[in-house]
């Protein structure tokens, strides 16, 4: 019961933050002002307060950056294999790996401690960025990024998985949605931005995570990763860096592109 109240309070806080962000007039002012910046969903570096967390293929390292100019390694621990990305929310680290989703809680001294892991149970390791809010974690799995020239891939696994994380120590898979080749994801309030590779950018209303609704689908470009900034969306693909204005979600529009020269 104590846990439920705690998460309810966190949810209220989150909602108020999202509302504050949503009220901002200027597109650029909408991004939250923090000492650290905001990473895409493939990040392997993440800053939480005075600590920088770095994941490599198999482990996580903690750096004390209370003096930003002088990062100092304070810990390194093994996690698993095929680590892809790291995401932070409310003192919890979500680590996406080919072998599963790992949840770590940051202790008072800044050192992360494992609280749960959810194996994917797939015969071949997929690739998976992850984002989360107070109640749910969203994980994309795709098989195409894993480069294997001689493996026989018995099946393709291209899905968006939704976990209930109200009990962080026991995440429950509550829904799965088939995708083409899902890659980067970003979350802003009730909206999940999903890059589905050549199938383009999808905007999903996740207010009911068990019944996610697609509200926009931009399928005229290839999308790899996103950063939502409370009204401004940065999207990258092999051809361009795109920026969308979604201050009015019904009229989400492309406002600029930066070309990529192949």
């Amino acid at each position, binding site marked *: 019961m104590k846990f439920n109240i705690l998460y309810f309070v966190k949810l209220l806080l989150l909602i108020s933050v999202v509302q504050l962000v949503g009220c901002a007039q200027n597109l650029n002012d909408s991004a939250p002002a923090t000492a650290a910046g905001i*990473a*895409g969903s493939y990040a392997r570096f993440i800053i939480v307060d005075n600590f920088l967390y*770095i994941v*490599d293929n198999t482990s996580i390292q903690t750096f004390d950056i209370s003096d*930003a100019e002088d*990062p100092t390694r304070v810990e390194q621990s093994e996690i698993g294999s095929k680590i892809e990305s790291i995401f932070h929310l409310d003192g919890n680290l979500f680590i996406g790996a080919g072998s599963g989703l790992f949840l770590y809680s940051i202790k008072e001294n800044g050192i992360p401690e494992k609280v749960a892991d959810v194996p994917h149970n797939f015969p071949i390791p997929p690739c998976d960025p992850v984002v989360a809010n107070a109640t749910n974690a969203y994980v994309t799995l795709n098989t195409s990024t894993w480069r294997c020239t001689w493996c026989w891939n018995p099946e393709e696994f291209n899905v968006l998985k939704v976990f209930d994380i109200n009990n962080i120590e026991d995440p429950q898979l509550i829904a799965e949605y088939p995708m083409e080749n899902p890659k980067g994801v970003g979350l802003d309030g009730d909206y999940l931005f999903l890059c589905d590779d050549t199938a383009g950018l999808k905007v999903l209303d996740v207010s009911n995570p068990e019944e996610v609704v697609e509200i926009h689908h931009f399928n005229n470009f290839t999308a790899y990763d996103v950063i939502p900034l409370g009204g401004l969306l940065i999207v990258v*693909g092999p051809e361009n860096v795109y920026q969308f204005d979604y201050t009015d979600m019904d009229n989400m529009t492309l406002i*600029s592109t930066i070309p990529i020269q192949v």
Partner: protein
Amino acid sequence: MKNLLWLLPFLLCACLTPESSNDFEETGMRPIYLQGEAWDAISIQEAQPIKNLGKIYYKDNHIYVNEVNKGIHVIDNNDPYNPVPLKFIKIWGSKDIAIQGNILYADNLTDLVAVDISDLNNIVVTKRVTELYGLEQSSYPENYQGYFECVDPTKGTVIGWEEAELFSPECFR
């Protein structure tokens, strides 16, 4: 075990096949070498086109785009309708970005570097932490299974891997 003995002649046969008939062409990974330049030299350059898109980062109305294994593009995004490429920070082997205040953290091959970017015309490396990553990358391509061209250390420092048509590659994992 006994039942498998019938396989033996076939196995022996495979070993005795003349080498010439083993020549083959195969798509695999090839090391990218850095020669005649220090891999740990970090410098600022004029803005250049994005070619091999890596990860992205956003901070204080600036977009940071990783050029895989080569460095970081800095784009002024004060007007999102009209983003302006500013500079390129050359960091060999770089794949990731994080920024706290005016300090940018990046991976420089095996090391972690902290770079003061408050003046983009005069960036300063304030700290280098060695052995952020192991040396695996310089001996084989990570997250990859299949054939690859064996590393020849006399050709320079391996700063990354690229896909290529390989002729009878001897290394695989």
